């Protein structure tokens, strides 16, 4: 017994020694110092980046000093992120917008209050994708593609052709319907209008402010914009709508090459039954979305965060991660990786394109183009339908009122607005007419809204719809924004009757009236509101008094 005991004793000592040698390792693995690297990136690469952030964090990379690196990455529109960083509301370590177009703009703004640039050096690109016009393949073929190269000029002439696709033997496609995102909110939107301006000036570089004065350039832009069904904030959303709803909804839209590849992947593997879609590389030239990875030269970035950010960058540039980007349809930034499938004609793209780019204009010319666009953009005929039933009392009605006022202030003078409020009854506060003529008067009326009574939701929506059908201009973006906090209680029509009347279908589905519905608070019937919005190609939002401003701002980007 004594021997057995001592055997155990020695064994325990040996095991304890072995364990003590591991102790340091175990502790450093289990916890210790953390280095958090915040990244704000263009949402276009979310599908690629998000899983990689998780993979990287799980692998517990360390800095020289032994701190565990944690990446916190937030997708955000590139223009929104520039503004946030300049004002200091956002303080990321790394900023990776969709394109390096924004870097000179950000540096110029930053230098107003700082001695140095915000982004120094030439940041490395993470992945590449050219800006293209995504078009249904049969439509592109009807226009002579691929033997004929297409460009912005073709879009302009299609946009102004009154007979639309009939002229090409496809009356079922209706008029030519085009889409690009809102240039004040989205990268592909801003590059779309820059490209339109170049094309209108018949230039590929050296665009000047005096070029923007020309009447023919203005007409050209206005022509292209006439065919736009609506704007919006996210290029991905546009592509999704186009690929869900088909050619009668949108004939073509400005997007990134990778979105075409992704859709063709879906079609080929059977999860989408749409027509094939192809990338048109505008013959006049285009821009690259190059996703630069900029470690900011800002006071809030520490040396160790910079080191950690560089480690993550190296991880993203590794072959394995770059190959994943190809699977999603991006072109790798690493030149040693060949451009292989799915970057091929089976997936609607041509890696020998684009043949040329347009020169990025100076910051002042870009803002000149933005102002010009404001003048020629498609106006909106908008009806706001707002619930003022008794349940809206308190904070709800106050915030709904103030955010609606802010929303109205985002509209242009050329836009037309009607405001309808409903409870057990339906009241038109102001008829559909130009905002410029009545802005202050409408704001005064809205500020006096108070709550009472029941909820005649369906009746109110249907009557707004019928009014807009009758008095709205089909050459404008026509939209209805509905805000409600509860279930329908008093309507005379049923939901199905209403949906039957407002649903968008047929060859003009794309230009039909769009409904944007806001479920305000927990008691709203979100499912019904979603059905209403989606029947028209619009969008449903969940909101509450705290987020309502943001929802209205998002809806504003569609116009």
């Amino acid at each position, binding site marked *: *017994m004594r021997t*057995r*005991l001592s055997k*155990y004793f020695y*064994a*325990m000592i040996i*095991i*304890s020694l*072995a*364990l003590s*040698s*591991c*102790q*340091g*390792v*175990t502790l*450093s*693995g*289990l916890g210790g110092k953390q280095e958090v690297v915040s990244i704000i990136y263009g949402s276009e690469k979310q599908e690629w980046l998000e899983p990689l952030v998780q993979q990287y964090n799980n*692998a*517990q990379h*360390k800095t020289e000093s032994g701190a565990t690196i944690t990446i916190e990455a937030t997708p955000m529109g590139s223009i929104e992120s520039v503004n946030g960083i300049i004002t200091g509301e956002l303080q990321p370590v790394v900023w990776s917008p969709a394109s390096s177009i924004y870097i000179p703009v950000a540096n110029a703004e930053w230098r107003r209050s700082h001695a140095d640039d915000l982004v120094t*050096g*030439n940041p*490395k*690109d993470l992945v*590449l994708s*050219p800006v293209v016009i995504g078009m249904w393949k049969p439509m592109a073929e009807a226009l002579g593609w691929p033997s004929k*190269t297409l460009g912005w000029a073709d879009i302009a002439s299609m946009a102004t052709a009154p007979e639309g696709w009939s002229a090409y033997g496809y009356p079922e496609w209706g008029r030519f319907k085009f889409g690009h995102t809102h240039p004040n909110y989205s990268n592909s939107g801003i590059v779309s209008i820059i490209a339109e301006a170049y094309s209108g000036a018949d*230039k*590929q*570089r*050296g665009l000047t402010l005096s070029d923007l004065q020309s009447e023919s350039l203005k007409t050209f832009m206005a022509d292209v914009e006439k065919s736009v069904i609506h704007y919006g904030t996210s290029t991905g959303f546009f592509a999704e709508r186009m690929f869900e709803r088909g050619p009668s909804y949108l004939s073509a839209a400005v997007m990134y090459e990778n979105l075409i590849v992704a859709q063709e992947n879906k079609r080929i593997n059977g999860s989408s039954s749409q027509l094939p879609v192809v990338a048109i590389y505008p*013959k*006049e*030239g*285009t821009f*690259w979305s190059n996703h630069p990875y900029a470690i900011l030269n800002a006071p809030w970035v520490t040396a160790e965060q910079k080191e950690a950010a560089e480690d993550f960058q190296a991880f993203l540039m590794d072959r394995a991660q770059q190959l994943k980007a190809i699977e999603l349809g991006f*072109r*790798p*930034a*690493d*030149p*040693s990786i*060949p*451009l292989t499938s799915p970057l091929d004609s089976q997936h609607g793209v041509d*890696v*020998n*394109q*684009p*043949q*040329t*780019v*347009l*020169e*990025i204009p100076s910051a002042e010319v870009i803002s000149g183009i933005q102002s010009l666009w404001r003048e020629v953009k498609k106006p909106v005929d908008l009806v706001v339908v707002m619930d003022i039933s008794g349940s809206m009392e308190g904070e709800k009605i106050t915030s709904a009122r103030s955010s609606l006022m802010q929303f109205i202030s985002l509209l242009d003078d050329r836009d037309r607005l009607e405001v309808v409020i409903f409870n057990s009854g339906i009241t038109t506060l102001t008829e559909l007419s130009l905002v410029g003529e009545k802005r202050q008067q409408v704001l005064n009326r809205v500020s006096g809204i108070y709550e009472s009574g029941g909820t005649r939701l369906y009746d109110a929506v249907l009557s707004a719809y019928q009014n807009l059908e009758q008095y709205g201009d089909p050459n404008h973006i026509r939209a209805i924004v509905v805000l409600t906090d509860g279930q329908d209680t008093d309507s005379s029509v049923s939901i199905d009757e209403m949906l039957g009347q407002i649903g968008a279908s047929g060859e003009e589905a794309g230009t039909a009236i769009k409904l944007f519905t806001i479920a305000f608070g927990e008691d709203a019937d979100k499912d019904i509101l979603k059905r209403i919005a989606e029947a028209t190609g619009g969008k449903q939002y969940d909101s509450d008094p705290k987020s309502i401003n943001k929802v209205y701002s998002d809806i504003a980007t569609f116009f």
Partner: protein
Amino acid sequence: MHTPRANSILFGAYVVFSSIILLVALILPGVRTRPLLAKAPLRDWFLDKALPAVLPKPDPVVISVLYSTEKEAWLTDVIREFEASQPALENRRPIQIQFEKMGSREIYVSVLDGTRKPDVISPASMLQIAILQDLSAGKFGKPIVNQADLNTCRSTVITPLVLVGWKERADVLWGDQPGDQLWKQMHDILIDPKGWSSFGHPEWGYVKFGHTDPLKSNSGFMTIVLMTYSYFEKLSGLTSNDILSDQDYQQWFIDFEKAISQFEYSTGPLMEKMIAYGPSTYDLVTVYEATAIEQAANAVGRYGQLYIYYPPATVWSDHPFCILQADWVTPEKAEAAKIFIDYLLSKPVQEIALLRYGFRPVDASIPIDQPGSPFVKYSPNGFRIDLADLPTVEVPDGSALNTLLEFWSRYIGR
């Protein structure tokens, strides 16, 4: 009976518990990032204290080297061998080298402003040595380097400035090879608002040429030196006066440079962009021959054939290693630096530069067309083995070079 059984149960539990901890410790990533036996007090004591006590080692002579980024891969590759050979001075003091890489211009700027006090500097070319020689004479009373003194300043590997272009497009511009008027032709096509339309190819847009920022990168600097020499139709004797007093030249130069949309900060990334973006973004760029070789394999199979063109006269990036003539460079340090430079000039190290990195050896006895040479492998892309008949422009004096940089910085730099 009772006690041993309890013991064995306890022991069993202990073993299981310990094994779990051991397993966890082995699985956790910490294990992979550091040696398993990082803490070994006995071993550390033996190596650090006991051995030296028996065999006292002289203190090492540490020399600091500031070098330009283009040769990082070659240096990193060959330095291991140097360290493994346990280099030492005659008095047995071992040699240690501290490296720091930076841009070629940064190197001489940091020596001039005193933020760095290196023993050896190695910018990408003699251009920077010439500038430093000129400016340091003014600043310190005597030059801190002497480019003509082979005892302190040696070129190590050389590579000429070349043009890299998409063959399909270059063919349209100049056929097989650019003529003697290359830079004048480039100027004219770059400022032509019709761009490629003038050559029957409207689909290629405007003509897009690229070189690096001359203030940040040597290859861009070499490009503007070549352009300027070519304007004055000479191969030597460029002066500050040429640059400052000829308004036609100035206008010509400004127009040329304004037609370039963007200046990359470094040669490697410029070449990578050329390949990653294809001809949409750059039709032609100037880079080092070695950079072009490094990327030649990557260019295969995308955007058509990439081809190398030698300008009618070139300038060489010769990666000089120069020992500074400064009070902090002791005779021992100078001796150590010479040993290191001699190592870089040794045949095996020169061959590595050729075979792996596409540099031309300064040792003329090493054939460039030997088996395994990238010059042979990529000769279908226009690389030439023999450049004996390619004229070289003279490195202008430091003040002329500085004037050119100042001029660029004032009118073009953004």
